[in-house]
Every structure is written in structure tokens, then in C-alpha cells.
């Protein structure tokens, strides 16, 4: 729960709903860093991250009436969903302009068996974040939706306008790239 109890959070939401700026500011300060991290996972460019966060936060604070409190963590989950939607909207716009591609037939990458690999737990979070952000655009989006937003391949396919097979294939390859990078990182740090 961080610095605030759930009761205080509820109180802040109620005050923010009436437009009280101090409450809005406090909610912003409470969640901005987590939501920035979410946004950074989808979008590598810092200026684009700022634009998407700005639009997302405005939407959050203008839609607080629609938020239903379902217990601890529900506010953060709701805010994260809005930020992710805005990030996807941005990526769709970028896709139309040709800067993002979801390759139906991605290049072949040598796969590692990492299903029960705990390699992630031995790599600093900052490094993992860097690796995720360095993934090719299409891979990264599928990877994020699947791993962090708990979306199925069917949902991802609908969201991104691709087939389920493409989604699964891209996830598979994203995972392979990450596994390779983690292996290299660990090898380098063992020396």
C-alpha cells in the first residue's frame, strides 16, 4: 500500500472526484513512478512516454467517476489499464505511419528452454527493463501484454489486429531474445 492506507486512498479519490487539486496531485504523486515504468515498457522514446502519460493521466482524472473500488490494488490496476490502452493507441498510430511492424514471420532465433528458468530473479530490474525496452517494437508489445497484462493470445490478436499465431510466435521469439541476453549478462557478471 505504500505510504497510504486504502482508507486514505479512498478518501483521496473521493476528493479528487470533486475536482480538488491537492487530492489529484497526491494521487498523481502516489502512482506516477509505477505508471511511468509501465509506459516505458511499451514505448522507448522518452518524449513519446511523456506525451502518452500526460494523455493517460488526464483521462484517469477525468474518469474517476467511472472507477469502481474493488479492494486493495484495484485503483492501481485501473490506472495501469488506462495507461496501457493509451500506449497501445499511440503504437497503433505509429504502426499506421509505418514505424512499428508486427512481423507475421519473424526471423528465426535459436531458442532456449527457459520455462522454469529463474534467471530473471538474478538480474537487476533496471537491466531487465533495458532489455525489454530494447526488444523490437512488435515483439515488445505482445510480450508486455502477455506477461504483464495477463492477456491471452486471442485478446492480443484482437487488440493488435494480428493473428493468434503471430502473437504466439512473437512472444516465443521475444522470450528467446531475452533469455539469450540474460544468459550473456550472467556470463559477463560471473567473470
Amino acid at each position, binding site marked *: 500500500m505504500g505510504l497510504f492506507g486504502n482508507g486514505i486512498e479512498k478518501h483521496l479519490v473521493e476528493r479528487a472526484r470533486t475536482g480538488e487539486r491537492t487530492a489529484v*496531485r497526491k494521487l498523481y504523486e502516489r502512482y506516477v513512478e509505477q505508471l511511468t515504468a509501465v509506459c516505458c515498457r511499451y514505448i522507448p522514446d522518452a518524449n513519446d512516454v511523456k506525451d502518452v502519460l*500526460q494523455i493517460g493521466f488526464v483521462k484517469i482524472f477525468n474518469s474517476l467517476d467511472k472507477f469502481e473500488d474493488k479492494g486493495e490494488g484495484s485503483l492501481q490496476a485501473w490506472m495501469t489499464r488506462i495507461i496501457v490502452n493509451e500506449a497501445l493507441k499511440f503504437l497503433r498510430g505509429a504502426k499506421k505511419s509505418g514505424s512499428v511492424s508486427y512481423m507475421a514471420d519473424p526471423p528465426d532465433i535459436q531458442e532456449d528452454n527457459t520455462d522454469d528458468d529463474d534467471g530473471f530473479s538474478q538480474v537487476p530490474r533496471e537491466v531487465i527493463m533495458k532489455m525489454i525496452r530494447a526488444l523490437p517494437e512488435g515483439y515488445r508489445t505482445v510480450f508486455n501484454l502477455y506477461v504483464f497484462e495477463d492477456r491471452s493470445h486471442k485478446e492480443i490478436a484482437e487488440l493488435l489486429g494480428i493473428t493468434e499465431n503471430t502473437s504466439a510466435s512473437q512472444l516465443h521469439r521475444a522470450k528467446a531474445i531475452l533469455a539469450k541476453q540474460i544468459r550473456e549478462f550472467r556470463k559477463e557478471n560471473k567473470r
Partner: protein
Amino acid sequence: MKETWANILQTRMAVYKEPAPEGLWEGIEAGLAATAITASAAVASKALVHAKHLTHLKWFLVAPVATAAVVTAIVVGYKALFNKPMTPIPPKAPVEMVEQPKADTIQQVVPVQQPAPAETVVVKEPVQVQKSKEDVSQPEPKKEPVKEPEVDNSGETAKQWSDYLVQYDGHNVRKTFSVSAFIGGLPGSAKDPLFENTKYHHKIPLHFGIMLRCDFGNTFGLSTGAVYSILASDISSGTSESGINGKQRLYFIGVPLNVNLNIYRTKTVLVYTSTGVMAEKCFDGQIKRNILYKGQAIGTDIENLDVKPLYWSVNAAAGIRYNLTSNFGFFAEPGVGYHFDNKADVKSVYTDMQLEFNLSLGLVYKFPSR
């Protein structure tokens, strides 16, 4: 079914944070204000026009009534307190002015205390006496009728400045109306505690007033009236790329109550001091914000301000009045005021720069003495 590695990664990264991009909050503020405009601009602007006129009208009705009430209280209070001394003074009344022949031009003003009858208030009365140290307490001093310094013009050239020092005259009441316009204050800047990044630059406050002054004798007077004030501030937050700039205006109506002491008087010039208190009510106020996004103004937001608590201040001034005719003149009053913190959320020059220096300039009409 989500694989184990995905769950491990999700859990590991759940607490990960990144610092917020610089200027994000300012952009969000601008975005919130912009969306508020689109939602309510039409309704708000209509309501604002109607409400503003009604509010101003209401306060312009209230202010004169309040002023009239204060004036009535002063007059009633005066009659109650001073009625007896105001009754005609018997020939042997103890309060009188003794003016000695002007053989010796060096004169001084000394208080003379006369024995008072049982029912008469003892007062100290300044008199002009010769330097010859004539015994002023002798049983039968030379007496002359009471005179006002400014009435006697014939010997003006022979008089010293000290002749015009105002002398107490308890049974000569002048009532003077004055119409005045004030301008004063010093510009400054401060930060808003709620919005740390909002800067205020306060402009010189403008005061316009109508004052009624009632003199009780030559020395002492009370004045009250209605003072209309406008406090304007420039506000800004964020950057010129993404942020807000605009103006705040607060409108006040105030009722002052001042004690005036006349120091020096000739036929044409009056020097006096004024000290008193003033209660002010902010009856209207707005913040107009221009929303800047990517360097472009994308909209305007007008927020009405509602300030409940009264503003109190204490004021002191020294004034000089120049009479163009026996009834009409103009005056200048440099002064200083201290505004008490009324804990209002709205910032203004009153809350940020509590000490206000001002200069009042005005016209005065003096009703003929009865």
C-alpha cells in the same frame, strides 16, 4: 496457461518504478484545465455574466447601507457623549481662549486649566499668551471671544507658523464630505502553497472610495465610507511550452473607520494624520488561465473564486489638504497599512505582502459650517 517464467518476471517487475518525466505534472494540469473548458465553457460563461452583475449590484447596495449604519452610530454616539459640552457655554464658563495683544511677536501656546463648575468636564485649552509670563491663573484675566485661527485673515502676514497649529475647540463641529480615489501598493511575487509551481506577480492594488468625515472641533475627526478595491495578479506555471499563464482579479468592498487629528491649519492648508481599521469583503474574483500546450494556447479557463473570510487591516496616513475655495479642495495622503492574514486559500497582495504603502489622492467638498 501462463508459464512459470512469465509469472516470475511479472512478480519481479511489479514494484519497478521509473522517475516521472520532467514537466509531466504541468502538462497534466494544462490538459485537465483544457478538458474542463470544453465541458463547461458555454454554461460557465453565461452564468458568469449574470452572476457577476448580480453580485456587484448586491455589494454596491450593501456597502452604502453599511456605511450609513456606521455614520449613524457615530452621530448617535457623539450626541450621547458630547451633548452636555455642546450646550451654550455660560459667561463664566471655564473653557475659553485668551488672546493677548501682539506686541511681542514671539508667542507660545500653553495649556491653561481653569476651575471647572461641578457639571462641566475639565479640559485643557491651549491659549496664546505673551512671553511676559503674565500669570494666567489670576482671578480676572483678560477675556476675548473664542476665535478660530483660520477665520482671522487680517493679521496673517504677521503670524508665525506656530499660530496655525490646530487648537482644540470642543464646541465647534464641522462636517466634511470628501470624495477620494486611492492608488497604492508594491508589486511582488510569491509561490502558491497548493500549486508549488504557480508563481504570482502582484500588481499595485487600486482603491477607490467615498468618505464621510465629521470633525468634532478643530482637532479631532472621524471618517468612514466605502472603499472599492481591485487586486490583480499575473500567474504562471510550467514552461512557455507546456503550462499555464493568466490573471487573477479580486474585487473588494471595504468599510474603514478612521480617527483624524488635525495638526496644522491655515485658510488654505490643512495637515492631519489618520489612523484606523478597515474591514473588507471580497465579493467577486476570478482566475483566467490560458492553457499552453506545445507552445500554443489551446484554450482559456475561467475559475470563479469564493473567499468567505473578511480581510482586516490597520492603516495610518499623514495627509495634506489644499483648499481651492472655502468649500472645495484636494488632498494627498501617503500612508501605510498592515493586512492581517485571514487564512484564505486565495493568494493576493494582501496575504503575500501584508505591509502596504500607498498614496491616496482625492477631492474634498466641505459642507458649510452651521
